[in-house]
């Protein structure tokens, strides 16, 4: 620990009351007892800058202080992993092409709090931050997916909910479209648990050659290397963002919280991306090893401390050399502000000029955005101290490992038994008119077509998209234009399932994301999780988190990578706590899962839309009395209790049988059974993504011994597939080999959906009627 050359704050002599007041006045979320540790760590009182640094580093958002010990159980290794969740993003092995090994970079983040307070900017900077994580691994960013959770569109906060929903969607479009990153997947759920806290998660993918990975750490022997800050001029925007993300949102603080949200600039980012790709190219040509990191939470301070501490080195930074766009910014703001569109390079001296030239001359950053540029701000040191200088004086001098080490809590958890005991299955009468009930389900905003959302997004830019949002259960791309292999991506998590059972809900999220990827014919190779929960200091909430992590762990461990007994690995992830209103209401536990799939030949990819008249429809997966959390119960104002249970063995068999069948080109279309049950699945297959389908279906429910409503609307996992006559015997052979439970449902025919049970027609709907319900429900929720 070193000395400083400015005044320190006398934490040692302050009473608890004085210290609390001090923390509040300085907008620090650090706890009293945490603050009191500082004089012990530093062996002296801290400076104001040091207080801000530790406040940021010790926030839940940056330190994962509550979650670290629980997250350890997640499987993160396996034959498909190139880089697990250690750096800014994980990397899965994708394919070999022309003698090179390629990886897919994947990252998952939340921007929940900012999006609740300033939805357009919050959602936009959510994209902005996540794409930086992927780029800084040395990748080209190729896709995003956006899982969104909004409040009830008919509830008492409906006006705010609608405003937030629309602004979030616009924010995602307003950032991703100019940047030129296509959206290939996503989902949207509405319910009242999100009234005060929307969830805005984002998954980003990138592609790179394995040999071109740039690590988020200073290279070995980097002593004396330059530290270069690149991008937008630092201002006070987003100051305290990480700490803000770790607070409970109070509606009354809305105005004062706005300053903690960053300001997006996709135009500058677009040019920064291109300039950075030029730096990659030059460095590869010259064989230079660099360290590179996105500046996100905690700004310059977090990025630089993490870059050097992971290499066992220290840093000396001159705050006055950071390019800023505001006068007289206090040094701790320059160090910790979360101004967007910035990166940090660690570069050997001989390459520094090249970096500066590319950003400042070739791509003219200073002419693109006021005061934007690349600036050398300091150097890497052998000593492990992290020294910040301001006006020639040392204002921070602390062991870099102490800064990045963070704090850790062993939180207590306790099940909310009462909540569980109060759950019960409703005793509903059979609906009088199954056709009307079907239409009502199709127009439920959680089921209805999300075209009014994803048509705001550029799904085509870069020209890599093969299957776009809405067309199938997962998006498909060819990341390398002339290569046969492709990737698939799906994001999933049903909030009501986790409300009923946070463990099983999480299991279902993993299972569904794998089914969705299977539906297009891709093999799941890696997962990413974003764990969104309430206040972890509450034992019941922390219990939900613990159960959620256990659920995704068990599912990944037991659903296996294809043809192995190894888990599907998690290669990246994020935890977002404090998604709770000031009144103490937390969001439905939401372990949102992104599943990355791979296919060897994209020409085999299929969509959900029915392709031919008079082909056969099969149901895979037995229908069970598992309607807890279902849309059917929701339209009856019930929650229920029995959510789908996942029998790992049969679920695995079912997924891999479908993948094999598509690989053998035996299926015409395939769609997973989830929200709304099998009748929704079938209706969506008839309609297709654009609701332009022209071929109907006729099926019989005679295979089922359940009540009709339970057969039609149960969300027990499964698939419906369409196959041509000529392929049926082969399909049967394949399914029998995999020991799959499958049933012949009926045929594709006519221009209606006709369902019969015991020779009685119970549903008779024109495609037009299906279309009308399915295409209006979501639009109404937004308007």
């Amino acid at each position, binding site marked *: 620990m070193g000395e400083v050359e400015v005044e320190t704050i006398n934490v040692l002599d302050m009473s608890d009351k004085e210290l609390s007041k001090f923390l509040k006045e300085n907008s620090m979320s650090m706890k009293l007892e945490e603050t009191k540790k500082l004089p012990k760590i530093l062996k002296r009182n801290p400076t104001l800058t040091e207080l801000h640094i530790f406040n940021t580093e010790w926030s839940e958002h940056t330190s994962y202080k509550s979650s670290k010990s629980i997250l350890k159980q997640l499987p993160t290794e396996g034959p498909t992993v190139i880089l697990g969740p250690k750096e800014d993003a994980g990397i899965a092995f994708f394919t070999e092409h022309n003698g090179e090994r390629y990886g897919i970079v994947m990252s998952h983040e939340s921007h929940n709090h900012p999006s609740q307070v300033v939805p357009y900017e919050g959602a936009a900077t959510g994209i902005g931050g996540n794409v930086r994580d992927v780029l800084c691994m040395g990748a080209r960013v190729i896709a995003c997916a956006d899982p969104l959770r909004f409040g009830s569109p008919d509830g008492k906060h409906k006006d705010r909910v609608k405003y937030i929903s629309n602004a979030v969607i616009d924010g995602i479009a307003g950032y991703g479209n100019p940047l030129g990153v296509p959206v290939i997947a996503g989902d949207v759920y509405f319910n009242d648990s999100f009234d005060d806290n929307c969830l805005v998660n984002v998954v980003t993918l990138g592609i790179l050659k394995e040999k071109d990975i740039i690590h988020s750490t200073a290279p070995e022997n980097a002593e004396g290397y330059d530290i270069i800050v690149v991008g937008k001029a630092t201002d006070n925007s987003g100051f305290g963002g990480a700490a803000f993300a770790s607070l409970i949102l109070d509606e009354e603080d809305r105005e004062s919280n706005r300053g903690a949200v960053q300001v997006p600039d996709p135009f500058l980012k*677009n040019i920064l991306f291109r300039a950075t790709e030029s730096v990659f190219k030059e460095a590869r040509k010259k064989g230079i090893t660099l360290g590179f990191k996105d500046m996100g939470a905690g700004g310059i301070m977090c990025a630089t401390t993490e870059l050097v501490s992971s290499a066992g080195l220290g840093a000396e930074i001159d705050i006055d050399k950071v390019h800023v766009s505001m006068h007289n910014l206090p040094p701790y703001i320059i160090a910790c502000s979360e101004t967007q569109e910035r990166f940090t390079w660690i570069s050997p001296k001989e390459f520094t000029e090249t970096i500066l030239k590319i950003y400042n001359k070739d791509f003219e950053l200073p002419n693109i955005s006021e005061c934007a540029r690349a600036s050398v701000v300091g150097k890497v040191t052998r000593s492990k101290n992290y020294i910040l200088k301001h006006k020639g004086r040392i204002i921070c001098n602390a062991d870099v490992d102490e800064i990045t080490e963070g704090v850790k809590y062993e939180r207590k958890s306790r099940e909310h038994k009462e909540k569980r005991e109060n759950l019960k299955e409703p005793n509903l009468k059979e609906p009088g008119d199954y056709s009307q009930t079907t239409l009502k389900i199709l127009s439920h905003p959680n089921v209805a077509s999300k075209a009014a959302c994803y048509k705001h997004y550029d799904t085509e830019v870069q020209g890599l998209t093969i299957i776009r949002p809405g067309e199938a259960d997962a998006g498909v791309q060819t990341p390398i234009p002339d290569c046969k292999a492709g990737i698939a991506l799906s994001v999933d998590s049903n909030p009501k399932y986790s409300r009923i059972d946070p463990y099983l809900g999480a299991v279902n999220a993993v299972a569904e994301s794998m089914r969705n990827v299977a539906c297009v014919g891709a093999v799941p190779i890696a997962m990413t999780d974003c764990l969104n929960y309430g206040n972890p200091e509450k034992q019941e909430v922390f219990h939900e988190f613990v159960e959620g992590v256990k659920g995704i762990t068990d599912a990944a461990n037991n659903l296996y990578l294809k043809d192995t007994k190894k888990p599907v690995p998690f290669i990246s992830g994020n935890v977002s706590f404090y998604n709770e209103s000031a009144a103490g209401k937390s969001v439905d536990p939401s372990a949102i899962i992104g599943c990355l799939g791979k296919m060897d030949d994209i020409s085999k990819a299929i969509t959900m839309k029915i392709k031919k008249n008079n082909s056969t429809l099969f149901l895979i997966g037995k229908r069970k009395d598992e309607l807890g959390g279902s849309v059917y119960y929701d339209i009856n104002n019930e929650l229920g209790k029995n959510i789908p249970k996942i029998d790992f063995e049969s679920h695995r068999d079912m997924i891999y049988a479908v993948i094999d069948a598509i690989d053998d080109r035996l299926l015409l279309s395939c769609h997973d059974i989830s929200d709304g049950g099998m009748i929704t699945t079938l209706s969506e297959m008839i309609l297709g993504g654009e609701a332009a389908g022209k071929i109907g279906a006729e099926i019989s429910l005679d295979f089922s011994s359940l009540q009709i409503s339970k057969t039609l609307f149960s969300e027990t996992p499964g698939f419906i597939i369409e196959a041509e006559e000529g392929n049926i015997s082969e399909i049967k052979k394949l399914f029998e080999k995999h020991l799959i439970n499958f049933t012949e449902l009926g045929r594709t025919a006519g221009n209606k959906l006709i369902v019969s049970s015991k020779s009685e027609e119970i549903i008779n709907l024109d495609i037009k009627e299906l279309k009308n319900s399915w295409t209006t429900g979501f639009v109404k929720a937004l308007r």
Partner: protein
Amino acid sequence: MAPKIAVILFPGTNCENETKLACEAAGMEADIIRWNSKENIDDYDGFILPGGWSYEDRIRAGVISSKDHLMQKIKSAAKKGRPVLGICNGCQILIETGMIPGLKDKVEMALAPNINPFVSGFYCTWVKIKNSTKKKNAFNEFYDENEIIDIPIAHGEGRFTTKDEWILDRLNKNGQIAFSYCDEQGTVDSSFPINPNGSISNIAGISNKEGNVLAMMPHPERAFFKKQLKEKTMNNFGDAMSLAKAAKIFESMREYIKKNKT
């Protein structure tokens, strides 16, 4: 020798890579030329202004790029007969330079915000357009008259409009309306979603009188290979990589250059 195309990168352009790829797949060479490049671009046989948000759409989409010194050079190259293709933002730029429709060498048309009853602002979807001119231009050599093309759009300001009636008459008479939004049968129906943005006369693309400059809002580089199309059956990877109809725009450009190269 393969024709050499300059794909222009303005600050904010975002479709340069796939546009370059489309040129190459159509048998041309292509270089991405940065806006501030000191390179002499006179040697290029043709030019493409790809899509994006050049200069952040400040003032109006395409205005600032249209004033760029590079555009002056491209304008004089066009006068010498070299082909120039503007896609999406590139289309907006060509309108703002007055090169399109180019009747009186001044700005004569505009691309206004979409009129769309379904989604306001930016709208990305697949549409059908048809080769709606009898006249051969540098980009429709391989199309039959009224041939229908599947192609995506992705824009917020793609509605061709003009305040002068006579301009439309002249465009029709000159055969300058190169592409029009249409339905599956090729009928030019002005109702949404067949006309996705309210464009006047369903215009999707306009050429200059001479036919060597084309401004179009839809993205042919995103509908170049069969695998990129929305509705498709792919028998094998070779089939997936076979060229779709929109590729003919690039192939026509190649042939036009070969024929007219002096």
